[in-house]
C-alpha cells in the first residue's frame, strides 16, 4: 500500500508540474483580462474539487446515519476538512482575480456570499467535531453535514438562478471557452483531484490511527490498577 501511495504521489507531482506549465505558458492569453485570467486554472478546479469533497461528506454522513459505520464517519471528517482547504483556496484566489478585473476585492453577490456561507458551514462542522465532547457528536455532525450540503447546489446553480456579477459557467452554462483553455482547465482539475485524493488518503490513515490510539488510551486507563491511578 505504501508503494502504491509513493507511486501515486510521484505521478500527481508530475501532473501538477505539467498542469502549472500548461496554465502559465501553453494556455492562450485572454484578450480582455490578460494574464490575470490564468487564475481561473487554479480557482475553478479548486471549486469543483471542494464541491466533490462536500458531496462525499454528504454521502458519508447519510451512510453513517443509516449504518453507524465508523469508516463512513471517518470519511465524512476527512472530506469536510480537505473540502474546507480547497474552499479556502477558492475564497482567496477569487478576490485576487476580482481586484484587477472588477476593481473590487469582494462584493455581496449571491455566488460569492453563498460560497462564503458554505465555507462557514463546514468550518462550524469541523469545530463541532473538534470541540464537542458529547457521545452523540458524530450523529449531530452528520445532521449538520446534510443541511450544509444543501448549500452546494445553491452555490453551483446561483449563477443560473440569480443575476450575478460572477462569470457564467464555462461548462453547461451560458459562458463559452476556447478549446485550448478548456484542455488546460481539465488537466489542472485532474491534477488537483489527484492531489486531493492523496491528501484524503493520508488524512484518513491519520484519522484511523487517532481513533485506535484513543481506544487504546481508554482501555489502558480502565485496566490500570486503582492504586496507580
Amino acid at each position, binding site marked *: 500500500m505504501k508503494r502504491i501511495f509513493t507511486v501515486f504521489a510521484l505521478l500527481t507531482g508530475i501532473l501538477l508540474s505539467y498542469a502549472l506549465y500548461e496554465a502559465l505558458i501553453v494556455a492562450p492569453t485572454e484578450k480582455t483580462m490578460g494574464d490575470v485570467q490564468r*487564475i481561473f486554472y487554479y480557482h475553478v478546479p479548486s471549486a469543483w474539487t471542494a464541491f466533490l469533497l462536500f458531496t462525499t461528506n454528504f454521502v458519508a454522513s447519510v451512510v453513517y446515519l443509516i449504518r453507524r459505520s465508523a469508516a463512513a464517519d471517518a470519511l465524512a471528517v476527512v472530506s469536510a476538512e480537505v473540502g474546507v482547504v480547497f474552499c479556502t*483556496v477558492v475564497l482567496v484566489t477569487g478576490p485576487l482575480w476580482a481586484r484587477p478585473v472588477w476593481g473590487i476585492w469582494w462584493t455581496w453577490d449571491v455566488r460569492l456570499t453563498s460560497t462564503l456561507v458554505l465555507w462557514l458551514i463546514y468550518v462550524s462542522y469541523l469545530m463541532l467535531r473538534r470541540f464537542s465532547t458529547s457521545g452523540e457528536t458524530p450523529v449531530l455532525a452528520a445532521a449538520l453535514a446534510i443541511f450544509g450540503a444543501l448549500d452546494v447546489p445553491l452555490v453551483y446553480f446561483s449563477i443560473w438562478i440569480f443575476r450575478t456579477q460572477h462569470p457564467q459557467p464555462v461548462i453547461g452554462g451560458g459562458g463559452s471557452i476556447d478549446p485550448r483553455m478548456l484542455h488546460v482547465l481539465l488537466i489542472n482539475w485532474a491534477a488537483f483531484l489527484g492531489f486531493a485524493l492523496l491528501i484524503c488518503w493520508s488524512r484518513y490513515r491519520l484519522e484511523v490511527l*487517532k481513533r485506535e490510539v484513543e481506544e487504546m488510551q481508554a482501555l489502558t486507563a480502565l485496566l490500570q490498577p486503582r492504586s496507580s491511578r
Partner: protein
Amino acid sequence: MNFLYAAYAATWIIHICYLVILLVGYRRVRKQIEELRRGQ
C-alpha cells in the same frame, strides 16, 4: 502579473500549511503510540 503570481503562491501556501498540520498530527499520534507501548 502580480495578482496571478499572488493567487498561485497563495494556493500553494494554503496547501503546504495543511500538509504541515497533517505531519504534526502524524508525529503526535506516533508519539502517543510509543508512550502506550512503553506503558504496557
